[in-house]
């Protein structure tokens, strides 16, 4: 469809207020979305971090800022530790790690909305183009 609602909800979810109007109309920079939206002609899609099992970004990280969260096995990023060397940007074959200069000069990526119940992009995708699956490829529904 190319509605870009995934982006809107991702940005809102990672804003201070988590309120869609305040995020978009309020003062100060908005967070970057954790995904890339691509569109050529009739084809459009959104892609975010695959949380790879064998994650090249974790290996390439000079500081240990990129790490695997033990419980969920999500690939997360510690902004305090990150120095912005962009090694992760260099090695991610999906090209889904962003350079977040405006907010703080560190890498920015999908965190699977780990602080809330369910990924905002999945929850708000109107035609189930974005789904959440486990390591076996089975769909995970919101509880």
């Amino acid at each position, binding site marked *: 469809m190319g509605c870009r609602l995934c982006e809107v909800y991702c940005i809102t979810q990672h804003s201070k207020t988590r309120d869609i109007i305040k995020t978009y109309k309020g003062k100060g920079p908005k967070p970057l979305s954790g995904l*890339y939206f*691509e*569109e*050529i002609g009739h*084809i459009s*899609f*959104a*892609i*975010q971090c*695959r*949380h790879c099992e064998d994650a*090249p970004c974790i*290996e*390439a*990280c*000079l*500081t*240990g800022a990129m790490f695997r969260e033990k419980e969920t096995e999500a690939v997360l990023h510690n902004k305090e*530790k990150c*120095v*912005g*060397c*962009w*090694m992760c*940007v*260099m*090695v*991610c*074959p*999906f*090209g*889904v*790690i*962003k*350079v977040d200069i405006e907010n703080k000069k560190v890498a920015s990526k999908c965190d699977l909305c780990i602080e809330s119940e369910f990924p905002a992009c*999945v929850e708000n995708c109107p035609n189930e*183009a*974005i*789904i*959440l*699956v486990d390591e076996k*490829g089975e769909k995970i529904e919101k509880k």
Partner: protein
Amino acid sequence: MKKEKKLKKNKYIIIGNSIAGVSCIEGIREIDKDGEIFVFSDENIFNYSRPLISYYLAGRLKEEQLNFRDENFYIEKNVKLFIKTPVKKINTKEKIVYIDKGNFDFDYLFIGTGGSPIIPQIKGIDKIREGVFTFTKLNDAKNIKNFIEKEKIKEVVVLGGGLIGLKCSEGLIERGISVIIIELSDRILPNTFDYNASMIIENKLKEKGCEIIKRNTIEKVIGKDGIVKEIILKDGRKIKTKILIIGVGVIPETKIIEGTEIIKNKGIIVNEFMQTNLPFIFSGGDVAEGEDLILNKKSVIAIWPVAARMGKIAGYNMVGEGKKYDGMFIMNSIEFFGIPTISFGITNPPLNENYEIIEKIDYEKNFYRKIVIKENKIIGAIYLGKIERVGIISGLIKNKIDVSSFKNLLIDDKFGLLVLPETYRKHIVKGEGIEV
């Protein structure tokens, strides 16, 4: 007497505690939770990231912020770490390593001793005991910092306009010190960049007040009572200075294998399992020579991600996992004064019909993109200024994808996964919450 039923625990020894050694620990512990692991480091810190020493020199990071794994790491992984404990000798027959006071036997050994700085032959340098530094370890950065503060240094001479020399220069300039860089080649970063990219960075350095002397080198160092006073260049020019930093490059630190039958070329030669010619001795990182996917031969690739990969693969195979290293290639991500730069492989090929170049440049905006193609495959690239999505290029290189059908889109603003051939796109994004 109680009968010991348990199988004998493996004893692993790791020499070197930088990213190769640490990744080796991680590889071993993913599989073998019980084996004994001993790690030996000649440095006086539980771990730190060497590339971050320029951040330390610049004053951007403190010493306690340089670690890439926290102190608990060694406890969690149940590893005995010996710092300030260089390994002196390896006995490959008896499988023993010797330290100053004692020795340890092993079943499997990993050599991750990294690289050491190249000291070019300069007249008079052997008589100097104060004022000449290298820049590869934390102690180097500390010594430079202390010396500069103690002597109230305002100007520094750096020999070498490659990655080490420039990152050191950047750190110094950020401290408010003026820098003179001396580079043998006709441009800075000759091994990493092409002319255009070198010029953009050179202009930025000059803007920051840095003097760059090219096609020149240091012929002689003049000292008094062992203290640096002056350097004399090849063209006769004299520069008064109290401090000279040598940042011309590193070579594999292979001293430890002298007198053993371990085979080396420039670095220690390893097979796809990271084994040396002795199957119970492994190696990886800046000291080792593994497969280079672009050059199609064994080569030392002294960069962090390669060391991490090699160390991890070695760790798996020290436990007998039979995991293969699929090869890597040279790549660098370095920021100079706010200009991010990423480069892969061969960035400056000879000008002939074998290579195709696609490029776009905007000097004003410090923006440059270049792709080098050979036989329809990308073998090199430079991204300067805007680097987002460049990782896709690294994937195309690694997987040797034929880019002929979309090559003109490679440097386009719209470049992304959608311009890739459907088969490759589906291969890399299969499943996992996406529908193409």
